């Protein structure tokens, strides 16, 4: 689970107040706290690092302008994720979808692995996850990113996607079933290629 501050976190409230008064130092605090998750969501939905960087910035620019209207009924992170998901899905619907990405091209440089072999294995595994996500319809991709990668609870996913909690459960079921079929199919293809 990604560490997130509690809803009533005082430092976050202060940062929000500073943003509302036009102080971009407040936005810097929020950016340092939430940009990694926002960027990861954009990256996994879009499948392209350059576009994800651009969208992540746009999320915070939009938030800075809209924070005076943020009513605090949801966590700030949920609100930011909602902006991010909407922006990315709109971007995909506008026809700019990345259909295929060369292995490793969509990811920031791997770090922290012990050896070049391990880094290569991690890179291939991460590419396989991205290939799987890219092959899914947008709605399935978004909900799997929020649940499986960001580990959001159902209620939070419902707020991000703007759907009832019951819909989250049924959509997750369909998305997992679809992903499982694609994953097993890809694994079977890989086995055949290795034999050939």
């Amino acid at each position, binding site marked *: 689970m990604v560490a997130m501050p509690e809803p009533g976190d005082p430092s976050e409230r202060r940062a929000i107040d500073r943003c509302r008064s036009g102080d971009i130092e407040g936005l810097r605090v929020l950016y340092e706290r939430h940009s990694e998750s926002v960027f990861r969501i954009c990256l996994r939905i879009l499948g392209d690092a350059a576009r994800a960087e651009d969208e992540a910035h746009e999320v915070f620019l939009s938030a800075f302008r809209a924070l005076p209207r943020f009513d605090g009924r949801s966590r700030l992170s949920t609100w930011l994720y909602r902006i991010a998901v909407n922006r990315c899905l709109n971007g995909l619907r506008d026809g700019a979808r990345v259909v295929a990405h060369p292995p490793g091209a969509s990811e920031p440089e791997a770090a922290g692995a012990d050896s070049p072999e391990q880094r290569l294995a991690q890179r291939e595994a991460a590419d396989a996850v991205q290939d799987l996500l890219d092959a899914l319809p947008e709605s399935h991709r978004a909900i799997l990113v929020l649940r499986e990668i960001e580990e959001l609870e159902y209620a939070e996913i419902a707020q991000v996607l703007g759907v009832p909690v019951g819909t989250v459960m049924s959509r997750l079921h369909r998305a997992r079933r679809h992903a*499982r079929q694609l994953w097993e199919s890809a694994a079977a293809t890989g086995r055949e290629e290795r034999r050939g």
Partner: protein
Amino acid sequence: MAECERFRESLSGRLDGALDPVQERSLDQHLAHCDACREEEAALRRLREFMGVQGRRIPTTPPGWDALEARLIRQPRRRFGPGLLKLAAAFVLGLCLGLLLRAPHPTGPETWAESGGSRSAGLPGLQAFLVGHSAQAADPEALASELGFELRAPAELPGGFRLKRAYRIRVGDLEAACLVYARGDQEMCLLQYPSGLPVSWPNEGLEDCRYGGMVCRRSVGREVELLQIEPEGVNLTVVARPGTLDPDHLVRQVTAN
């Protein structure tokens, strides 16, 4: 098989700990005699492990703050939004008050006029006021009934400007309507007060500026200079003679009070 289909959604729910005890027991009973569903559950767990672990394993480094900060300073704010509408409302009020202040005043040239906001000490040569205000989007028809005065809101204005939306604006104790008309990418706000007097404010001439860590907006005209800045959450809108504003001094005055 039909029975299995009933339990497949529960398998997904159980992965997330979303089942209640009754659903858990029912699912366990089914799994006890269904090899296919047990295999399905195992496959879902493998998928989850694969996506979760591998999806998070590559560290994601978000783009740097510096680039965003540069964009924030460089990028103009919305061409026409609530902030500008508030500014427009304050500006109109400011013009009225500014004209009043041009007349000889018993308290001398350092007088501040205020409307619904904070009081501050006077600054030499400055005609300014503090305004508490807010803006809220509304449907033009609904807005007319809410405000309780007749809006003159033709669908189209001379020059091809068409009515797009409306805002309810509060300037101190005064409520007003801002009717937004657009022609291409040009927008203007037609302000209407209960007296019915329409005042127009074109969407141009405002520039972003920056003082300390704060973003502000500024317009310098022949007659007045206008600045909007929000130190510590206080909405501060200032109208003054051109060249007389010292925002840093002003901010210190406001925050000290």
